[in-house]
């Protein structure tokens, strides 16, 4: 028995080693491949439009450590950064952290060793970045955060944070609702599908929404549960909402996927999504837009992943020595059903 336990333990160790080493090498592989790729595609562009501000005649190198490829949103984000880096003529070194902080720290350290000009990354989690950011600072490499923030108290560790303002997204969703029901005298019952409990988008989108709908006493959130940002949970929770509450007028979902799951629950209950129950959602992914163009989602607040151009602008400004804002908010739109229908063919993600 004891022997078996030891064997099991050593096997576990071996597996873990294998897994970590596989991750490491896999990461390295994509890393160099990405860099080669970026170098290859951006070379011609660089020849024609090399920015004058680059120090000497050396091409600007940008190291970017991405979270992973967990959703369509993230893929669009990655593509946007690769495309705009190529367009700006930067040499992009790209790495995929597979949603692990240690991979991301490894990638950032390797960028420091390679002496890239600027490091940009989307932190997997909020905390634990001080050491590696300090190393970058000591090496004199400016750091730009994209999409997600870090909770470091020392803001001098990074130049700027480019990303969506989740509270503002919530406010916009709420504002549309307030405008829609400003003349209504009866009570409007709202149910809310929250994102993953404790995540920044879930907390902020809820806060912003509540802040705005407070102005109209008729707007009431009667139920609010987490749907974990997934379709399956959105469906299941909405089923329960429909059974527990007699009258639901509005559904506010923190992302499109949950709204899509909820739409199926509403249809299963014999109601018409978008008519019997007004649906508001955040994100604006392709499937969400398709549903909106069919009139099943009434209002989408966009959460724009295409922040490549803004990132490249910030990189340029940092290298030019300009002082830039500590917080750059991505440009985002809002779409009603009709607007979504018109915009659908041009959507990139």
């Amino acid at each position: 028995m004891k022997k078996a336990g030891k064997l099991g333990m050593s096997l576990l160790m071996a597996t873990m080693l294998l897994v970590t080493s596989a991750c490491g090498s896999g990461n390295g592989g994509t890393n160099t491949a990405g860099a080669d790729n970026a170098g290859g595609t951006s070379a011609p562009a660089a020849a024609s439009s090399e920015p004058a501000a680059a120090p000497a005649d050396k091409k600007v190198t940008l190291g970017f450590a991405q979270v992973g490829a967990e959703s369509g949103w993230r893929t669009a984000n990655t593509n946007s950064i690769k495309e705009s880096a190529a367009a700006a003529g930067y040499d992009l070194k790209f790495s995929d952290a597979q949603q692990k902080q240690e991979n991301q720290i490894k990638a950032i350290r390797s960028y420091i060793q390679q002496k890239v000009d600027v490091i940009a990354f989307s932190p997997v989690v909020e905390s634990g970045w001080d050491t590696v950011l300090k190393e970058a600072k000591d090496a004199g490499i400016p750091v730009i955060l994209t999409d997600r923030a870090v909770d470091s108290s020392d803001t001098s560790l990074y130049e700027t944070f480019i990303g969506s303002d989740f509270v503002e997204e919530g406010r916009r969703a709420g504002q549309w609702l307030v405008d829609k029901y400003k003349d209504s005298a009866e009570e409007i019952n709202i149910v809310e599908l929250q994102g993953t409990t404790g995540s920044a988008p879930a907390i902020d989108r809820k806060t912003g929404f509540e802040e705005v709908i407070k102005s109209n006493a008729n707007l009431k959130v009667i139920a609010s549960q987490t749907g974990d940002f997934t379709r399956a949970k959105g469906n299941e929770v909405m089923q329960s909402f429909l059974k527990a509450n007699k009258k639901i007028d509005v559904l506010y979902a923190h992302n499109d996927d949950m709204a899509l799951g909820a739409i199926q629950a509403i249809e299963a209950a014999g109601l018409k999504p978008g008519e019997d129950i007004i649906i508001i959602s955040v994100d604006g992914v392709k499937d969400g837009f398709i549903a909106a163009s069919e009139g099943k989602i009434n209002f989408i607040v966009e959460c724009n992943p295409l922040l490549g151009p803004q990132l490249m602008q910030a990189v340029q400004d940092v290298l030019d020595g300009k002082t830039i804002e500590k917080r750059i908010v991505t440009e985002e739109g809002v779409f009603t059903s009709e607007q979504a229908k018109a915009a659908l063919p041009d959507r990139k993600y």
Partner: protein
Amino acid sequence: MVKHHLFWPLVMLGALLLFNLLYSPDFFSVQMRAGKLYGSLIDILNFGAPLILVAIGMTLVIATKGIDLSVGSIVAIAGAMACMTLSKGTDQNMLGLVLSAVGIALVLALALGLWNGMLVAAFGIQPIIATLILMVAGRGVAQLITGGQIITVSSSAYKFIGAGSLLTLPFSIFIAGAVLLIAALLTRKTALGLFIESVGCNPEASRLAGIRSRVVMIAVYMFCGLCAGIAGLLLSANVSSADGNNAGLWYELDAILAVVIGGTSLSGGRFYLLGTVVGALIIQTLTTTIYMIGVPPEITLVVKAFVVLLVCLIQSETFRKTLVHRFKTRRYPAEREVKRHA
């Protein structure tokens, strides 16, 4: 009657349902809507079907003193594979395509079960480690299949598997029922059940007694993989999409919990399929209850954990005995003195 293994699980399920009845009297109302039955009870059966399936497979694995941690990943892989095959086709509603998508996904699930079974039975790796490998790697495989994206399919034939209805009841209930029936018949009407229990008690002794322990073990893991695969199809068909990242996340834990609540011991050698079904229904009823009464999401897990703790304590014979003992014993110091050596 108290001695019957289904007694305490059924009491707990009854208590949960009673709580719901008191909280909202509508809970038990079932109406006809658009040709199908509609109500909370139907929901519990419908959403509970995948968990019941996974838990049935898990029961047999646990009966051989094993455990399968990879079921959640197999759920994700099966859903991803089916949706991928469908999305490659030209006409997604073609019955042949849907059947082949389902077939490919189930064969893949069987193969993954075979992999687990080989690791455990042929190479003698401890089940918890052997299946941990696929648990970790499986989500990667699912993501690989979907390319890291959520794949949406628009096939009404495929959707029928998870969201369709037959004889006014959700189709998923029939699938779960059929698998339960097959498993029950195979294990209780043939010697297979006895073989499984015997292997769970002592694989070596069973082998010497003429049972092919390895074959039994491999078969059990394959069955578990198949069950998880079917559950994966139900889950992905229900929302017409495959999400490699989140489909079936933490399902293995719910399934193990359902098995344990149902009275099957983790030390193997004995299993109760019906107990497992009741266990899975308890978990699903609890989830639905939490949504219905509007527990704030921040404390949902605490409430769930508390109820599960309660269920487990009531199930535990030692705990019940201690409780009864406490009530019966008078607390004279002298009496305690006498009791000590016992």
